């Protein structure tokens, strides 16, 4: 078992566990913004299956990865919107993501290339959304028990994931480094584990 296999086990394992746990806790989160996290996890898992299948028959086709990035991150933006209620931020974020994908599609194929630059843009937008959410929380009385707030932990996971991912995508998009699959996947494994663990913990904090 190589680094890539271990990392993939870490990514898919934590992702599936988070989904399974969120489905089990569905009754306590169905009326809360965290239902969007369940949708995020569900969509990710559902799209990872055909992506994995496609890769096994034609290793260069990564169209589903780009679709996953596009859809799931838009869901995350909406989840942030549920807390911050800043419509402008949501609209600008989604429009910028779409434009960055469209612009990038002029330079590289949507089917065969991971869009590094749009990914970098998404990471920056999610970091901005996280900061806006933190600011909103700081101004509310809930800050007194911030460590009991599901969204606090989920946002923290997103921030860690996106900060590291943004720096990697920045280097990749600027061609400062070549794609080193081992390193890339192992870093992704660690940060994915942090992200999905934060989702699981955040969902566990939701009470009926």
């Amino acid at each position, binding site marked *: 078992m190589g680094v890539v296999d271990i990392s993939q086990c870490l990514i898919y394992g934590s992702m599936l566990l988070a989904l399974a746990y969120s489905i089990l806790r569905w009754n306590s989160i169905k009326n809360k913004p965290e239902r969007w996290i369940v949708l995020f996890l569900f969509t990710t898992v559902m799209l990872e299956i055909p992506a994995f299948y496609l890769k096994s028959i034609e290793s260069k086709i990564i169209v589903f990865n780009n679709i996953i990035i596009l859809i799931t991150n838009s869901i995350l933006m909406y989840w942030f919107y549920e807390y911050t209620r800043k419509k402008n931020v949501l609209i600008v974020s989604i429009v910028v993501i779409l434009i960055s994908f469209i612009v990038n599609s002029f330079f590289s194929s949507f089917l065969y290339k991971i869009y590094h630059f749009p990914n970098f843009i998404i990471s920056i937008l999610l970091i901005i959304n996280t900061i806006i959410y933190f600011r909103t929380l700081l101004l509310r009385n809930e800050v007194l028990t911030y460590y009991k707030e599901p969204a606090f932990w989920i946002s923290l996971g997103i921030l860690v994931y996106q900060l590291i991912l943004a720096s*990697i995508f920045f280097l990749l998009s600027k061609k400062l480094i070549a794609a080193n699959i081992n390193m890339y996947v192992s870093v992704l494994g660690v940060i994915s584990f942090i992200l999905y663990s934060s989702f699981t913990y955040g969902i566990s904090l939701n009470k009926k």
Partner: protein
Amino acid sequence: MMSDLTTLYITFFISVFAVVVGMAIIFATFNNRKNQLLQQQLEDQLAAQKRQHATELNALRSQLNPHFVHNSLNAIQYYIQRNEVEISEDYLTKFSKLMRLFFDYSRTKTITLEEEISFINKYLEIEKLRFEDKLSYEITIDKSLDINQHSIPTMLLQPMLENAVNHGIFHKTSAGIIEIELSRTMIENQYIVQIKDDGIGINRTKTIHKKSTGIASAHSSHVIEERFEILNDSGDWEIDYKITDRSDLNDGTGTMVELTILNLQDS
């Protein structure tokens, strides 16, 4: 030139470092804000408590209006001047006992109904000495109401009696009567206190006070209501306060005050 792997390692290391520092900053910011809010809440609570104490003290002070002390002393002086030693002695004794009780009760939150009745009795006796035949009073207690068991916020009734005497009976040309009736309700720890006078009534009193300065009456009514508000907010009592002009009810003249008191502490 650095290799790709070295660049990646450095980038990764810097990112991890940035994340750790970022986390530390986030937690520090949230803890600071939390402490700030807690401090603010504490200050608000203290301010509210101070306000409550001030109002309570205000209420207690206003219960024995300086006018009452002044009028009582004037009446004693009047009897002394008329050489009516026995009456003035009796007056002075009652007055000093009432003062003693007032200072004792000022430090107590609640007293029994029996103690409150004894207190208002002493107060009305003194007022009766001042008004002579112009004032009479009657206290009726429901037999099923155990006045030793039931409690009441200290000196709650006296300010209302003072209003009945000074604003109801005082303006009346003929003699007046104050009727105090205490009865229990079907609810445990709840009883009703009704204070009725056959004076000029609250509507006319208001008109008279509007014409003059009216400060004392408005102030005492405000303090009475404020005290009820504080008692209800405390969660220890549930007091319903109703004041009506008896002429509005076609029940003669005068004012009727009805208090429905529920002791939540003993519930």
